[in-house]
């Protein structure tokens, strides 16, 4: 009877020791920062640069800074003078909105942020209601409350609007207006009707080819010429029209890239089921295409949000222009850095938040689309 190998102990290989744990700070440092002589030198130089750059900034902005006070005399230390910001806080948020009416802005801003939180936090139910509220309810409420002149609310002309409230208004109107317009243009550019396609191509390429500044110039110089002489156009409205048309062209190109990525069979299957063009688009093509291009859409939103600051050039007072105007105040000369850093922080928070959100949503939706 032959003995098989496992009958005896001698043929078994002695068990090896478990691998030494490769964790901890030392291991991390060795692989990520000091894996070789070149890498070590790079690490040390980078570290020096970071320390030399970041430490003075922290020191200036936080440690040595003055936070409370009411005039520039309260800024006694070497650091930043945030009193400059805190004394103009209400202007930065409300612009020149009359103080007795500011509760109206508060309500709109509160609703705005509440709706965004509702839409963004995945656990909350009723997304459709929230979206409808954001797209239809909020604009109506905001229009009635901010402009006034009805239901016994005193009228507040748009030239009194300003600050963060104006920035958010422009951004929101731009976003809500340019997305549907962009979708229509994208569909038109892919249409089989030659004349529709030509019109859409010309429209899109025109707006994409010129800088936003010239569009704003045009809307403030030329738009009054285009309408009958008795029609009075509000300056803000003119800028909003320009911004909406301009960004709809960029939005159209983003949506078009999504439409192109959808398999032709999808539309053909819809047609085979007897769906008409609009039903096919609404039920089959657009839901898939828009989902694919969410990152691109959000990137366009971010660009739009950043470019709201350009209204400074045509004399509207958004966050940046309010701060810019404050810098020329003779009581507060020499606080340019504080002003710009604060304005940058405001824009950065919104833009960075949007880009992070788009990355999260991209990851969440990624499971659905794998061929």
């Amino acid at each position, binding site marked *: 009877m032959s003995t098989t190998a496992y009958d005896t102990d001698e043929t078994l290989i002695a068990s090896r020791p478990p691998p030494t744990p490769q964790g901890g700070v030392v291991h991390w440092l060795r692989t990520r920062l000091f894996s070789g002589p070149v890498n070590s030198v790079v690490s040390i130089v980078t570290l020096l640069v970071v320390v030399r750059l970041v430490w003075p900034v922290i020191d200036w902005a936080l440690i040595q800074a003055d936070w409370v006070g009411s005039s520039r005399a309260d800024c006694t230390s070497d650091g930043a003078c945030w009193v400059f910001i805190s004394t103009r806080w209400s202007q930065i948020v409300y612009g020149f909105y009359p103080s007795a009416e500011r509760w109206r802005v508060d309500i709109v801003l509160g609703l705005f942020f509440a709706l965004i939180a509702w839409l963004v936090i995945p656990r909350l139910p009723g997304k459709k209601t929230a979206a409808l509220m954001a797209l239809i309810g909020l604009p109506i409420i905001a229009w009635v409350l901010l402009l006034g002149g009805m239901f016994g609310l005193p009228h507040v002309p748009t030239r009194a609007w300003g600050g963060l409230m104006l920035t958010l208004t422009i951004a929101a109107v731009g976003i809500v207006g340019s997305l549907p317009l962009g979708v229509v243009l994208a569909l038109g550019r892919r249409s089989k009707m030659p004349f*529709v396609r030509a019109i859409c191509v010309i429209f899109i390429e025109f707006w994409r*080819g010129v800088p936003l*500044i010239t569009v704003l110039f045009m809307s403030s110089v*030329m738009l009054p*010429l285009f309408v009958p*002489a008795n029609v009075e156009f509000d300056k803000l409205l003119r800028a909003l029209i320009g911004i909406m048309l301009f960004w709809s062209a960029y939005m159209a190109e983003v949506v078009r890239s999504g439409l192109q990525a959808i398999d032709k069979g999808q539309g053909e299957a819809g047609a085979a089921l007897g769906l008409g063009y609009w039903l096919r688009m609404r039920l089959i093509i657009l839901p898939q295409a828009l989902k694919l291009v969410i990152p691109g859409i959000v990137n366009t939103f971010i660009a739009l949000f950043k470019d709201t600051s350009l209204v400074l050039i045509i004399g509207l007072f958004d966050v940046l222009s309010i701060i810019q105007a404050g*810098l020329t105040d003779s009581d507060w000369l020499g606080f340019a850095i504080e002003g710009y850093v604060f304005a940058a922080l405001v*824009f950065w928070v919104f833009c960075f938040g949007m880009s992070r959100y788009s990355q999260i949503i991209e990851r969440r939706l990624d499971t659905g689309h794998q061929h």
Partner: protein
Amino acid sequence: MLRPSISIPRRARGPLWRDPTARALFFQGLLLAAVLGIIGFLVHNTMANLDARGIRTGFDFLDRRAGFSIAQTLIDYSSNASTYGRTFLVGLANTLLVSALGIVAATLIGFLVGLARLSPNWLLARLAGAYVEIFRNIPLLLQILFWYFAVLRALPSPRQSISLFDSFFLNVRGLIMPAPEAQVGFMATPLALAAAMVGVMALVIIARRRQAATGAQWPVLPLSLAMLIGLPLLVFWVSGAPLEWSVPELSGFNFRGGMQVLPELVALWVALSIYTAAFIAEIVRSGIQSVPHGQTEAARSLSLPGGLTLRRIVIPQAMRVMVPQVTSQYLNLIKNSSLATAIGYPDLVAVFAGTTLNQTGQAIEVMTMTMLVYLSISLVVSALMNLYNARMSLKER
């Protein structure tokens, strides 16, 4: 489109409004009528408004004397002799100058930062990431204003200039540096450079043919460099070094000699470069990451050295992804240079769509010309990009 073909027996035609062809024609007719109607309405209103304001349309104003001065003129311009048409060219030249400077700097910074983001060194990668996230998310206009008002306006007066080697001076009036002054006979040097370029091109073509035919490689790079640097230097030296430097000197409250770079130009250049570089860095990173890892592994299994793998395998494939996107960033940079008007750099928009428009009141003509410039730059570059894409796209067999 559902069009009955000949082989199918003719189906019973429904009512006309169910026929796709008829409907397509109808809707296009409707759209055409709407577009014509809107255009007609706008033209009618514009004519009526212009009439009411007593503005004459036409391009006659381009021949009238401008009479205002421009801070930076790359071409001949004088406030009391030049025309409005000339202001257009001066503005255009300034726009092109800052765009060209910005494109060069943004490309350099962008590539460095993009490569740093891919570095195995954690600290360096994070630093590059922070750069991108900070500068991409702050409006360009704000950055321009920051560099201009917070940094350059805070520089010392000419007498307390920050100086470098006693020939470069930085102060509130900008950067003052030595200016080259060409003497008689200097033209030979640029000509020599042009000749060297032609020579290099010929060399590259011949070397490539030779390698294809025999497999032998020529040291093309050192030879080209030697030609590009050596030939102009030789000509320069032989022709008696006909170049003198005008070094700026402080006299009284200002500098004499040298050339002055406007602080507006510096601020705009710095802001445009830093901002656009953040986007280019992301394009470079994603472009290099888009090359599948199998490609480098395959190259290594053929025992290609690292540098050659990068040059022959990774970069050509990454370029295909990167070039169209980087080009569109260049276009953005050119369009964004119009923000110059916020700090008063005399670019096309500030000079022509600003001062000239205000002085002449010819809004329609001026805005049309300004927009056409940007539009034609965009369209020409997009057309070139489409050609490039058609050439570079993967040939699937």
